[in-house]
């Protein structure tokens, strides 16, 4: 059924427009039957004493947040030190101090060396930063994806099924990482918001079969 028709039926069921027809009469009966069922639902009640402890619990979390921000200052200093050390180590490997740069013999060609060193450095850097800052899983996931060079923008354009297929196959068991990636960079409305559980199951089975 088209969206415009669905909208019209809702307007009819809620009394904003008047329409006639056997099909609509049936829609109304089914709608009213559902309302009756939903009215019988029991109310949710939080556990006893819940509201009394709500604000103190929240305040504790707020204090925790403040403390974690304060911890960032020494972490930043550590990260900076790590960066300086990494730079000095890396620099001394390319330009050994006992040889002037003009006499340097590189073990690899320029292109090869720059490719290897940047990948290793990025990985080291992301690990050092993650340790120094106590990054959460999401940030680590993003850092790791960055290292892997996955082109998220390109994947999104391929469509949701392709996107899922590629992510699942590329990341294998690292489901959480894939999730975090999708979550942080992509609009996953398209993936999950519009699909029912049955449709997702079907898609999942398709993916498992490939």
């Amino acid at each position: 059924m088209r969206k415009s028709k669905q909208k019209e039926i809702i307007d009819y069921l809620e009394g904003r427009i008047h329409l006639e027809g056997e099909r609509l009469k049936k829609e109304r009966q089914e709608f009213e039957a559902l309302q009756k069922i939903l009215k019988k639902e029991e109310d949710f009640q939080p556990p006893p004493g819940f509201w009394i402890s709500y604000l103190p619990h929240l305040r504790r979390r707020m204090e925790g947040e403040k403390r974690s921000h304060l911890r960032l200052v020494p972490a930043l200093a550590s990260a900076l030190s790590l960066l300086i050390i990494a730079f000095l180590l890396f620099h001394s490997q390319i330009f050994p101090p006992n040889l002037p740069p003009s006499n340097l013999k590189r073990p690899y060609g320029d292109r090869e060396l720059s490719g290897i060193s940047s990948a290793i450095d990025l990985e080291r850097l992301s690990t050092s930063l993650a340790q120094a800052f106590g990054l959460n899983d999401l940030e680590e996931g993003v850092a790791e994806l960055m290292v892997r060079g996955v082109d998220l923008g390109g994947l999104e354009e391929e469509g949701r099924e392709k996107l899922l297929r590629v992510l699942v196959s590329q990341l294998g068991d690292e489901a959480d990482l894939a999730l975090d990636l999708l979550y942080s960079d992509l609009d996953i409305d398209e993936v999950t918001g519009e699909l029912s559980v049955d449709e997702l199951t079907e898609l999942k089975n398709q993916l498992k079969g490939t």
Partner: protein
Amino acid sequence: MEELSDSELVDLFRKGQERAFNLLVERHKEKIYYLALRMVRNHQDALDISQDTFLKAYKNLKNFKGESTFFTWLYRIACNLCLNFIKREKFRSFLSFGDLTKPLSRPKDSPDFSYERNQLSEAIDEAINHLPSQQRIAFILHHYEGLPHHKIAQLLGKKEGTIKANYFQAIKKLQKALKVYA
């Protein structure tokens, strides 16, 4: 201080009076908690989402421009957190190839507290848990929270027609899932 409006309390908080924020929490905690509870159908998750809502508000209140009321702003944060939670849970089940027929929220009501709901209420929980996130929020905000469709559209940044279509699809799925109780 209790008799002050939300916007006056926001101003006081910005001037450094922490107690003003406590009052804002006391004033709106139930509404935010029940919204989350209706969305995720699980006390512990609802508690986490409602507290995350206030934490986010606390951190960002200095940037609140006052283009809407404080409560609308807070409610929007809660809606977004609920949507994120549902998507995340559903996608987590999907990627881990877990059993998608089980309720999507974590089965982890605190050990000393769990709901004992009758069979019909549990069936309603399950039917709502199976709705895609956009249909679920369109249904919850209209049916339980009593918001008109155009307000929901405004809140979620969608077209009113889309919200009505989502609501329509939600009630069709609920009718199908709950027809044995009719």
